[in-house]
């Protein structure tokens, strides 16, 4: 499989409230702190992490919707970071994003048909005369009735709006779709519908999908590979099945143990991972996870952890295997 997307050591910083007298000393928050990942064409990569880890920021920086301050983003071999206007235009024609809140992702004053037609028009995907037909096709592709083109987002359900969001992404005819927590706001019975739709589209169209979520259960069903993010860095990456059965990074292990399983025999940990992710304003020195890590060694707070690459898996920890 050809590599479609290669992210190398991406860094994104935001200005934060200053400190010191009159807030004059500018502080910067490192939302993404040297993240790297790869995505092949037609592959689904799950990006998991808790709030504040920077996964949404990473996704937006990859799509050049947020400026970054370091690192490379190679889309189909071309570095988009920063990219020339022609490169960015190409990126816009070949990638699309789906958002978490199905309602706020759509312009509330536009009808569904208009929303889709506008994308087709701006991107000149089809000649103007064929736009209405294509809109109908897109709606059908995502399982919506053609009459819905006349309605506004406010009169649709959450699941239907999310399908419209997917249709809008598909209108671009992308090679890569970034789905940012796109099922989190839906009921569990509707989540399954959207996930099945994504699975089907992936098979039919050979889409690459970067699926951002905090829900490990969904990742296990939908994704081929998973990347675990903590405080702006990818701490572990690998095939889903392997990472879930034998995690190598202590944080991944803690995440997997914390999943509330519907099998009551698989109990919650007696002694769950303590504390919470610290604020990105005060990143711990050395390994970002060491203050909460059960297996931390004295050196973990001083030097950044080394990266271990074993076949398709890699993780960044002082331990090459998870200590028992």
């Amino acid at each position, binding site marked *: 499989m050809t590599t479609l997307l290669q992210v190398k050591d991406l860094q994104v910083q935001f200005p934060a409230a200053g400190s010191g007298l009159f807030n004059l000393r500018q502080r910067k928050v490192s939302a993404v702190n040297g993240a790297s990942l790869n995505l092949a064409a037609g592959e689904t990569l799950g990006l998991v992490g*808790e709030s504040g880890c920077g996964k949404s920021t990473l996704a937006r920086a990859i799509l050049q919707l947020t400026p970054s301050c370091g690192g490379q983003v190679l889309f189909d071999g071309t570095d988009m970071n920063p990219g020339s206007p022609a490169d960015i235009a190409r990126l816009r024609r070949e990638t699309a994003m789906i958002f978490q809140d199905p309602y706020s992702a759509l312009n509330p004053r536009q009808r569904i048909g208009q929303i889709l037609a506008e994308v087709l028009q701006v991107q000149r995907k089809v000649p103007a005369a064929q736009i209405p037909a294509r809109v109908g096709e897109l709606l059908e592709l995502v399982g919506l009735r053609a009459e819905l083109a006349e309605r506004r987002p406010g009169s649709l359900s959450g699941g239907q709006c999310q399908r419209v969001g997917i249709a809008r992404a598909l209108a671009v005819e992308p090679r890569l779709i970034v789905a940012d927590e796109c099922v989190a706001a839906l009921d*569990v019975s509707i989540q399954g519908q959207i996930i099945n739709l994504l699975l089907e589209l992936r098979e039919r169209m050979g889409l690459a999908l970067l699926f951002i979520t905090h829900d490990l*259960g969904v990742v296990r069903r939908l994704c081929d590979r998973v990347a675990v993010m903590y405080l702006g860095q990818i701490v572990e990456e690998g095939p889903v099945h392997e990472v879930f059965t034998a995690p190598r990074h202590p944080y991944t292990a803690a995440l997997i143990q914390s999943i509330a399983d519907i099998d009551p025999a698989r109990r919650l940990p007696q002694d769950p991972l303590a504390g919470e992710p610290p604020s990105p304003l005060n990143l711990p020195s050395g390994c970002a996870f060491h203050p909460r890590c059960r297996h931390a060694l004295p050196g973990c707070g001083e030097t950044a952890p080394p990266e271990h690459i074993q076949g398709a898996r890699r993780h960044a920890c002082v331990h090459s295997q998870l200590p028992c």
Partner: protein
Amino acid sequence: MTTPLLQVRGLSVIARAGQRDITLVERLTFDLGEGEILGLVGESGSGKTLACRGLMRLLPAPNLRVEGQAVRLAGHDLLQLDEAGMRRLRGRELGMIFQNPSSHLDPLMRIGEQIAEGIRLHQGASRREARAEAIEVLRQVGIPDPKSRVDNYPHEFSGGMRQRAMIAVALGCNPKVLIADEPTTALDVTVQAQILRLLLELRDRRGLSMILISHDLGVVAQTCDSIAVMYAGRLCEHGAKHEMLARPQHPYSAGLLACHPAAQPEALRMTTIAGQPPLLDDLPPGCRFESRCPQAMPLCRQQLPELLEASPGHRLACHVPLLAGGLS
């Protein structure tokens, strides 16, 4: 058989819209024993939150009202009490914690003050006693260094700590029943595990009874003793946790279970329940789940199934219950 701590009989929440009455929660009936954690499960529109707010008579809009036969707690019938009587009960016998701790804690008041306020009100304690009690409660909910954190403001706490603080506020008055409305939905999964552990510990240590509202069956499976499933304002099924998870008999309960990402991990596609929940002002005369039910019979469209005891301790409202084994 000991009398249950909380007995709810026929609780309904009705909204007045123009000239019509719309029933949002219909004749909810259940018991809660001492030290029992009941999981109230349902999707959006099921009425689970409204039912509990109705129980506390804290409805969010003036056009809503509570009706019912009786709601018995600690020797009182909550439906018969006037507002002053309810106020004495709220906090002292019946506590509630909410989904988003940031919006349910007063941002301008120190945490210790918020806990102590309830203690002073319901127990008539002095400021010093209430403060000492607040520190103790903070310690019990697992906040490190409670003596110094008791004077912090909510914004100085992180998300998980705020949820713990909210639990502390609810516990300060020592209620017998705690209603937890999606307490971990807004939290990260590792923090969720901590909070659920805490709730279990509180039940073990204090004998606290709880109603845990959630849409996540996993959360409910890990913490609750019994599970009640609601759909479109009515209770579909209510039974012991193991029974409900292993052998759900209502097609909706079975469907909900099957939709969980962890169910049927080897299947190529996720199970879903086709269709959407009905609009509450446009309900069919028969079973509300009928249009989405794979087992529906003509009888289901015409007659609303009543909640009946299918086996000891297991109640079900269905004309066509599933036999053991779940959805075929």
